[in-house]
């Protein structure tokens, strides 16, 4: 018996049918066509499927699709607004903080969650917050720099 789920994704109302055991990650990607959120491991260890659920950073592979009922979901597709990139997206590009780019959506969502809570993180705080997101290409150096610079920009500081 399929569940009917009504939810909000990136500010827009959305609805879908799903099996009780269906994962939110699979529904986002295969039913709703939001392929920006990636599956790297399916076990919540790599963070490639990071999304915000009612403002909380979660791995979509660990959330049942039915849990989206009545919730507010934000994915990487919602970061840019009105044709403008989010400062995090812009800094990732300027600072070459991506190589293959497959972990990038997860990092952007996780970094946004960090800056929503802590607009002025230290390098150590940023590294520990982002420890749930695996990157195999960059060694994290340019990612951390991009996040700290985006934070400064969002605080109105010029670096």
């Amino acid at each position: 018996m399929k569940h009917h789920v009504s939810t909000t994704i990136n500010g827009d109302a959305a609805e879908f049918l799903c099996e009780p055991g269906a994962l939110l990650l699979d529904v986002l990607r295969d039913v709703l066509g939001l392929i920006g959120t990636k599956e790297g491991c399916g076990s919540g260890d790599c963070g490639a499927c990071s999304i915000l659920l009612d403002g909380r950073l979660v791995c979509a592979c660990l959330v049942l699709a039915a849990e989206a009922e009545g919730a507010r979901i934000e994915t990487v597709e919602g970061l840019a607004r009105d044709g403008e990139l989010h400062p995090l997206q812009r800094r990732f590009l300027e600072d070459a903080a991506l190589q293959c780019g497959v972990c990038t959506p997860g990092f952007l969502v996780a970094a946004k969650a960090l800056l929503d809570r802590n607009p002025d993180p230290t390098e150590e705080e940023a590294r520990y917050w982002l420890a749930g997101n695996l990157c195999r290409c960059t060694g994290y150096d340019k990612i951390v720099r991009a996040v700290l610079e985006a934070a400064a920009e969002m605080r109105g500081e010029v670096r």
Partner: protein
Amino acid sequence: MSDGAEGARKFRWVGTRPVRPDGVDKVTGRARYGADLALPGMLWGRVLRSPHAHARILAIDASRALAMEGVKAVVSAEDLPEIRSEQAFVGEGPTDFRDLSHNVMARGKVLYHGHAVAAVAATSAELAERALAGIDVEYEVLPAVLDLDAALAPDAPLLHEDLVTKGVNPPPQRASNVAERVEMGHGDVEAGLARADVVVEREFTTRPVHQGYIEPHAALAEIGEDGRATIWCSSQGHFMVRAYTAKLLGMELSSIRVIPAEIGGGFGGKTTVYLEPVATLLARKSGRPVKMVMSREEVFRATGPTSGTRIRVKMGCTRDGRLTGADAHLEYEAGAFPGSPVTAGAMTIFAPYDVADVRIVGLDVVLNTPKVAAYRAPGAPMAAFAAESAVDELARRIDLDPIEFRLRNAAREGVQAPYGPRFKRIGHVETLEAARAHPHYRAPLLPNQGRGVASGFWFNAGLQSSADVHINEDGSVVVTSGNPDIGGSRASLAILAAEELGIDYARVSPIVADTSQVAYSDLTGGSRVTFATGMAVVEAARSVVRQLRERAAAIWEVDLDDVEWRDGAARLRAGAGREPLGLAELAARAARTGGPLAGHASLTARGVGAAFGTHICDVEVDPETGSVRVVRYTAVQDAGRAIHPSYVEGQMQGGVAQGIGWALNEEYLFDADGVMQNPGFLDYRMPVASDLPMIDAVIVEVPNPGHPYGVRGVGEVPIVPPIPAVANAIHDATGVRMRELPMSPPRVLEALEREG
């Protein structure tokens, strides 16, 4: 083409850091990777995998599966043509297509836990997964061989009844698990070692480690009633995918079109095929498109890690630090089929050094573990762990600074490499000197901290590349090539085209074309794209520049020699008299002056520049837990010429991070039945952001005379020094020499307790 001379002048784009052209798509989630594609009517494919490390397949009965809901097709090796053992060099490195076929789908025997035995296509992923239980396979379980000693034992169970060791003369009478013996060197190593004042002889062991790309393998295949197939997949080479799929399925190359998706990491692990032929086979049998995506567990159980190894080195030097002899014996685990990177390990192990008397022997050994695949400088990091640790030990014994020791013995231009040829212009000395001059080398250390240094080498590849440069009617430019962009190569190719044409970088659109849209290109790997595909782009752009000069000459009614192309416009060489004609003007007049403006180049790149790196690593060791933390890291590398420095730094930093993970934590853990115990990212522990410091990437430029811009490949060198740099730092901090990887807390603690 080969003069490296494009260095005397100042560049407009080369050496700058513009935003990559594919960047917006990648930060917004628009970019489509292998698993992001779908077609109407698509089926999902899943693979049935062997529960045994070694067994004969007696029978496969898929009748129950075929009767299950939603199941449209089941395939096994029966559906593949038999291939005679045949070497065919497609792309980099020899590939035995019979072994490849048997790895993609087991025939007769399963050779590792997780080996593909059959595959099913059904109307949903869940139904396909359920259907696997409906395929009945009868096995005769055989004893498994799970480590080097077991494989090398005289009465060892054999994986391949016809495997006779290559490279032994006369050939052995009996089969064994040693696929090949390689030997190289020059001089008389016994005499060389006898001349030494100090000799170090040590044995090192390393475990298999995985490339760890975040994107699992994925493919979508569709085949029409006319037998023409289209495969969408992420890979390091779609021409390779086409060639391998055609070979394995017995199809004509021209009947397969491979369209490259964006790729989420490869590092060598995606230079081969696993799913693509199976998806195509299922598509053919079911008449529907078939999508297949590996789970992370499948990636670990069934795709190639790199070899576990056992390496003995013996090196000797004089009291004043001159190496007199170097001897190495390498045993590399190939996994289920021959083809470990032992040859490259043998070639690179002593390559940073000028040693007149050197001998290296290597064995390629098969085991009942997954068939190994290439991993960034394949074969070199393990070899460097051994040699660079031994060098460090020698330097300590004679109380000589480790960088000074390396300088006294450094390979330079004209020195004979251990694998034979003399080095041409190389930058090893320059990286050593830059490392020594770096403030890191003199920075104070805190208690429980230590500093290690190591050098690394990789050949880099040339191979074949093609490129087209088209001028649109408005003067904007399209650069088309056939190499998947793993790490920013679109940006580098656009930089080169913009530099050659003298136009704005933003006016260049680099496209990665599919196998039907651009001429053949060897894969993205071997640190070759900026070098070889870059060379093709330069040549194609120069062809366009010549055409532009011809058009201007025709318009002005002057000789071609009177026209030069400078700063993005055709100009009369001698004096004034004509307004310069820019790209936009000439493009607008192309139709009336001879037709569309387009340049093409297809080449086998020559003039490859080998590259070296020298790394400095500081660690802090917790004496109570054995935990090792990297607290500072500087990587110095000769890039020849950094076309886009941010992406060169990125390659360096990424390679360092992988090397650190390999050094400190990563390993395959198998139980007594050959079943991997840690096939997930929780227990296969790769570095996370909180494990690492900032990684200082210092680019040294010793231009490669063989490339128009002096480029040397950069992607692979940086993974070679980190393991010994970390090991040498641990020794500096604790006095303990680690000779087993990974140097995880239990092992370090045990070593501290043993020797402390």
